[in-house]
């Protein structure tokens, strides 16, 4: 199908502009997602882009990659205007991107997913399908996905899907790679691996734009930083200077995170001296009556068993953290409690009632609400309608209205977007909406799968305050969170899951001091 053999383009010398964005605006109706942004990426650098949720970071990537077209402004790549060039041609000119909300080719194998990139990307012109598969194997080895090569992409966990996004883009042999939150959902140890991978790609001669909320990663990787806020660039330059800019601290980092980030930026890893967020005062967790009791629970998908004899307890009024690496079975555990999956053996008891074989709606009625990792919003309904769906089983109209107001108060961004379809929300805003929808049910037990996924530091802080508040009001919480430090600081007790088994449990403070956990999950040795 490929026809024209264009003359080899002249290489861009290191340090010269590779991508130049001038006056870029993108409006959706009355909303300006991007408003006159100027940005230059120089050949050979890693540029970090920061900004609160809904600042326009992903819209920027959409416009640069040609999937969305700007309302105004120009984009030049390797000196040529690509503002109106079709998406696929921008890709073949050497620009690859990943998707924040992952877009795997679900029914194809992992290998074939990557082979598609190798076949049609910048390096695909001279590759037939067979050679593209060979190239895909190399990329899989580089991205540590070789062991999953023959699995269908739909069976991967979210962190592996993020890695698959990188692998497919990398297989395109790009000159410029746009990475949109590829580290969301990874724990600190996995983030170290991902950073090493990005450095390796960079050493291979690829210029990179990174969007990430993981401060440690973005500060550790970027040569320069640019900060977006409400579609405008509010700061740009040397990372150390940018994160001390008062506007950046106010809009994005929040005071406490700024301090923490500054210490990371200075090269010193935070031991535990400075907690990210002041933990709530320790409470007497013992002596409370058990609310959720899992006994010898086993579960899985098809022929694959994931959970093996898991016993776990959440008492009334407790916050319990569930810790474990990618693929340990955390989401499977929550899905089994919610009865999206059926237990193979063992039992689930909640408030004295056996829910092992209950229907999902009975679990919800009993007061267990899950905030799923992949959000599962109703894309065509407005934010307000999504929140109201959370109160589906409630009959107290006035209470529902006042709860809605409370949630708007806690997460003002949701109030601003109340009448927009949830499908148009930014990634972080979707996460807030999913949290809000969960809270609208007035749960007795809230299961949160990756609280901070895609959230800016300031937003994480706000949502943790919300969690602390509803917990004080009597809601128990089972929390899965990749930022293990934050999770344990906010929990009464914690459980550590490895390959489907509970390998450790105890008071959160003890786990946080445990050398093994600090090494495996906090990346502190």
């Amino acid at each position: 199908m490929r026809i024209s053999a264009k003359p080899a383009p002249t290489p861009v010398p290191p340090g010269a502009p590779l991508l130049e964005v001038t006056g870029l605006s993108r409006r959706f109706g009355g909303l300006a997602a991007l408003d006159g942004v100027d940005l230059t990426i120089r050949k050979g650098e890693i540029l970090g882009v920061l900004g609160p949720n809904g600042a326009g970071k992903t819209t920027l990537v959409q416009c640069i990659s040609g999937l969305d077209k700007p309302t105004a402004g120009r984009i030049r790549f390797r000196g040529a205007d690509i503002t109106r060039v079709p998406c696929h041609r921008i890709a073949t000119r050497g620009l690859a991107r990943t998707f924040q909300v992952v877009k795997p080719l679900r029914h194809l194998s992992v290998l074939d997913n990557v082979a598609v990139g190798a076949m049609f990307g910048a390096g695909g012109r001279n590759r037939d399908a067979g050679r593209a598969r060979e190239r895909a194997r190399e990329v899989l080895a580089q991205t540590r996905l070789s062991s999953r090569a023959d699995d269908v992409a739909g069976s991967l966990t979210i962190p592996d899907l993020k890695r698959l996004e990188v692998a497919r883009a990398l297989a395109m042999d790009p000159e410029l790679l746009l990475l949109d939150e590829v580290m969301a959902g990874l724990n600190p140890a996995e983030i170290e691996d991902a950073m090493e991978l990005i450095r390796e790609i960079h050493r291979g001669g690829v210029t990179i734009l990174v969007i990430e909320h993981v401060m440690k990663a973005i500060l550790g990787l970027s040569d320069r930083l640019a900060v977006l806020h409400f579609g405008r660039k509010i700061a740009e330059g040397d990372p150390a200077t940018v994160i001390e800019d008062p506007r950046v601290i106010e809009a994005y980092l929040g005071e406490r995170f700024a301090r923490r980030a500054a210490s990371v930026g200075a090269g010193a890893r935070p031991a535990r001296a400075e907690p990210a967020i002041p933990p709530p005062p320790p409470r007497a967790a013992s002596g409370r009556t058990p609310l959720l009791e899992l006994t010898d629970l086993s579960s899985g998908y098809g022929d694959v068993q994931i959970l093996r004899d898991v016993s776990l307890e959440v008492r009334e009024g407790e916050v319990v953290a569930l810790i474990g690496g990618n693929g340990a079975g955390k989401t499977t555990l929550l899905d089994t409690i919610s009865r999206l999956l059926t237990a193979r053996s063992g039992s689930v008891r909640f408030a004295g009632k056996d829910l092992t074989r209950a229907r999902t709606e009975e679990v919800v009625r009993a007061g267990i609400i899950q905030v799923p990792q992949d959000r599962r919003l109703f894309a065509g309904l407005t934010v307000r309608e999504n929140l109201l769906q959370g109160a589906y089983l409630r009959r107290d109209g006035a209470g529902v209205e006042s709860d809605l107001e409370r949630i708007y108060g806690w997460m003002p961004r949701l109030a601003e977007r109340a009448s927009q379809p949830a499908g148009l929300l930014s990634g972080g805003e979707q996460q807030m909406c999913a949290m809000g929808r969960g809270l609208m049910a007035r749960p007795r037990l809230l299961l949160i799968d990756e609280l901070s996924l895609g959230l800016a530091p300031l937003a994480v802080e706000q949502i943790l305050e919300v969690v602390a508040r509803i917990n004080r009001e009597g809601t128990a919480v089972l929390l899965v969170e990749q930022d293990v430090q934050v999770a344990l600081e906010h929990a009464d007790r914690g459980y550590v899951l490895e390959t489907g088994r509970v390998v450790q449990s105890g008071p959160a403070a003890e786990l946080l001091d445990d050398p093994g956990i600090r090494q495996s999950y906090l990346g502190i040795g």
Partner: protein
Amino acid sequence: MVAARRRVGAVLALLSLGVFLLLPRLVGTYTLLTLTRLLLLALMAIGWNFVGGFAGYASFGNAAFFGVGAYATGLLMLSSARVPFLPALACGALLCAGTAALLGLPILRLKGHYFAIATLGVAEAARQIADTWDGVTQGSTGIDLPMQADGTVFYWTALALVVGGTLLTARLARSKVGYAWMAIREDEDAARTAGIPTTRYKVLAYALSAAFSGLAGGITAYQNVHVTPTDFFKLDYTLESIIAVVIGGAGTVFGPVIGAAVFELLSTFVWSHFLELHPTVLGLLIIFFVVFVPRGIVSVVGAVRARRGRGLRWRDLFANIRENRVT
């Protein structure tokens, strides 16, 4: 292992081809007619599989090209040039591909239900044109093609095309074209950002699909002699080909042929045993397949093979439900 699997597939395909080569000598006229119908359905299904199975664009209007192929073949044979059957058939298929490419440019911009509805419109518009364009199509009276007394001509032509279509599918499935189609089916945005010129590949799928529908239409026209708009621009042809692909396995190489064989044999069996209840029983069987084997017979064969052939378990059927049900 993949190579071994493909070898088994090739051996099975050759065996069944052998059976189809021998059958005309062994069976009577009526059975030959049934077998020809089976092959023509397979041809339609092979065509639908390109656009619906691989590229994920469910066309509900392939009957339009079945009709265009029938009329084009017939009119060329009846024209003053007296074009012989096979060249006329080829011209009909090319006309179908060309028409589909032109129509595809606008309607392939639509997705999902909207594309399906647009293709329904295409089929209805084509029927109306055939119905009213008296000067060329003789309107609702229809046209009469030259008689062909030897019934095996249709059989052999259809068989050759089914073999060719299956080989083409196998070739494309492992090539860049197949990858592009599947990427489009799985996620069109991901496909575009991976560098795939999606419009070009979608138009190719639609044109190929139209060409195969046209071939089936042309052969059917020659076989039936009498061609009218109502008999040829019929939704049934589209629906049966979709059912065949779904039963066999969408987006697979042998799915369309296997599905067409199963559907045609079931249909014949049900006709002879439940004459009055035919549509009901056939409908129930289709529901059975969609519920228990929604990803096609080929997918079940794959599941059994994954366990190194330790037989089919009921769980394999229910696994399909588990994966596709609404919880």
